């Protein structure tokens, strides 16, 4: 089942039979284009290969008609059923889609059936209109498909709408490790954190995002980004103003995700505003 009301961006949520919601990322027209071009290339290559094989057979049985028949039948199958058959037997993927990590699934999150696969591929004949006559070959512009895909939230072209399918991008995400900071500066700041301070959930989420992206930033950028949160936190935690803000955030990250001395009961979120007030009321020891 898909849950359309919650879709804000290109992530769609599905509910699995195990009663768990998980997300897929939709593939837009321009990530599907390269896959289509690869499939087109493969189709042309297969066509040439079949012509070659058919002419060999033709030589063997001494019949030009058989060659022509084979070529025509192959052309027919490749033109209309290449995508549909691959998507049926390869679980929603064609060679091009597999190369670019795309997959076709039903709008309800389940895999597609043979009928859906064939329908969405036959109806590409409409989506690829209007066509322009290029010397010798028609060139399809896919404007209709693009227009329709732009008009709905899930980038479905007409064939997708009729078959009830969507195309998703499967990324191979590497599992993110919990980062351990051995840096003495961070350790020193961590020592000075108040023992009773529990990192609230929203803050720990922000910290995780910061630490994830931190390796990509230079020192100046780190100072700039950690500065805003760092100044507030320094006041809140009674730390000296000149504390390295980057190290402070790393230390808090360690407190949130790694430190041993936290109680196992669910954390009680600290009220930021009241905490600031109380710390302001008590003179610093």
């Amino acid at each position: 089942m898909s849950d359309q009301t919650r879709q804000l961006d290109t992530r769609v949520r599905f509910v699995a039979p195990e009663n768990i919601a998980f997300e897929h990322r939709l593939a837009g027209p321009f990530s599907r284009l390269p896959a289509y071009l690869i499939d087109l290339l493969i189709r042309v290559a297969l066509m040439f290969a079949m012509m070659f094989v058919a002419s060999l057979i033709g030589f063997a049985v001494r019949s030009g008609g058989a060659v022509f028949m084979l070529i025509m039948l192959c052309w027919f199958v490749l033109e209309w059923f290449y995508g549909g058959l691959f998507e049926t037997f390869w679980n929603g993927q064609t060679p091009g889609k597999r190369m670019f990590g795309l997959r076709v699934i039903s709008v309800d999150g389940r895999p597609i059936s043979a009928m859906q696969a064939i329908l969405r591929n036959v109806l590409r004949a409409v989506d690829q209109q209007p066509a322009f006559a290029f010397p010798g070959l028609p060139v399809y512009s896919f404007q209709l498909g693009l227009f329709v895909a732009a008009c709905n939230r899930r980038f479905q072209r007409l064939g997708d709408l009729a078959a009830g399918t969507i195309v998703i991008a499967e990324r191979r995400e590497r599992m993110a490790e919990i980062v351990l900071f051995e840096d003495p500066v961070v350790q020193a700041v961590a020592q000075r954190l108040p023992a009773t301070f529990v990192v609230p959930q929203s803050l720990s989420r922000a910290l995780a995002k910061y630490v994830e992206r931190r390796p990509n930033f230079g020192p100046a950028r780190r100072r700039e980004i950690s500065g805003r949160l760092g100044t507030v936190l320094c006041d809140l935690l009674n730390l000296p103003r000149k504390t390295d803000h980057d190290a402070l955030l790393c230390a808090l990250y360690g407190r949130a995700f790694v430190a041993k001395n936290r109680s196992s009961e669910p954390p009680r979120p600290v009220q930021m505003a009241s905490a600031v007030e109380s710390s302001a009321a008590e003179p610093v020891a």
Partner: protein
Amino acid sequence: MKVADLVISRRDDWRELEQLCQAIERRKTRRKLSGEQLARFAALYRSACADLALADSYQLPPTTIRYLHELVGRAHNQLYRSRAFNFRAWKQELLVNIPRRLFHDRALWLAFAVFWGFFFGSMYLASDLSPLPGFKEQAVGEEMLQSMEQMYDEPIAQRGREADFDSAMFGFYVQHNTGIGLRCFAMGLLLGVGGLFATIYNAVALGTVFGHMTTVPQADNFFDFVTAHGPFELTAIVLSAAAGMRLGFSLVSTGGLSRGESLLKASREAMPTMGVAIVLFAGAGLIEGFLSPSAAPYALKALVAATSTTLLLLYFVVLGYIQQ
């Protein structure tokens, strides 16, 4: 328990699930998996689901949550794989549901009326009785008419087409005619207008050629050729146009459903019809490739035409009607 410990304790399971996913994604390695491993895959998938469900209360970092979403989705797509062809359901669909649906399908009646209306209309206009003498030249062009005349200059029986050439033409007919049918179907999606246009276009072109051929000396040769495969081929064109129009009209008249739902419903119904049309095209191709150009007596060809017409009537009218 601390988040880091939790992640470390679960990490091996996730990795194992990832590896199993990888193995299942490739057909070669999938075959080698034992039953135990497959059961393990399902168990690991469920436990990853549970981890994802509790991710928020475990306070896992967002990156780990994103990784879990990806992992669960990937395993889900392997556990529930695409369903291939179900032949038993096809039989029920083919012998019971399709005839009934088609018999009551107003799009089919419309396509039928439009196609044959325009076909006979242009046939009349292109024949000797025509009130519009210049019609046929305008409809299909002088060159087309001349090339048709040339094609049927010799009697079919004396043309001496080799058997070799017949199989070649069979391939061509399947590729070309079924292509026309499928295009007719797909164009129907344009609110039905595209399908109507394709139907009228084909009906006028065919009708004009038929009408013209009655006026020239090659008439006998022409009808000797087209009689046998005509019923299958023309019915198949009407069927594909009707299936396409069903799609297009479903967007206009939704019967209370949303437009998307209405299109989905119509396309589920149109697909089997299209399947029947493709079978008919292939049958017509067989006849057109091997029987029509042969030296067989005209009586045989007429018999084939009569038989196929009877079969079609049996299928659409009798099977369609008795199901009421």
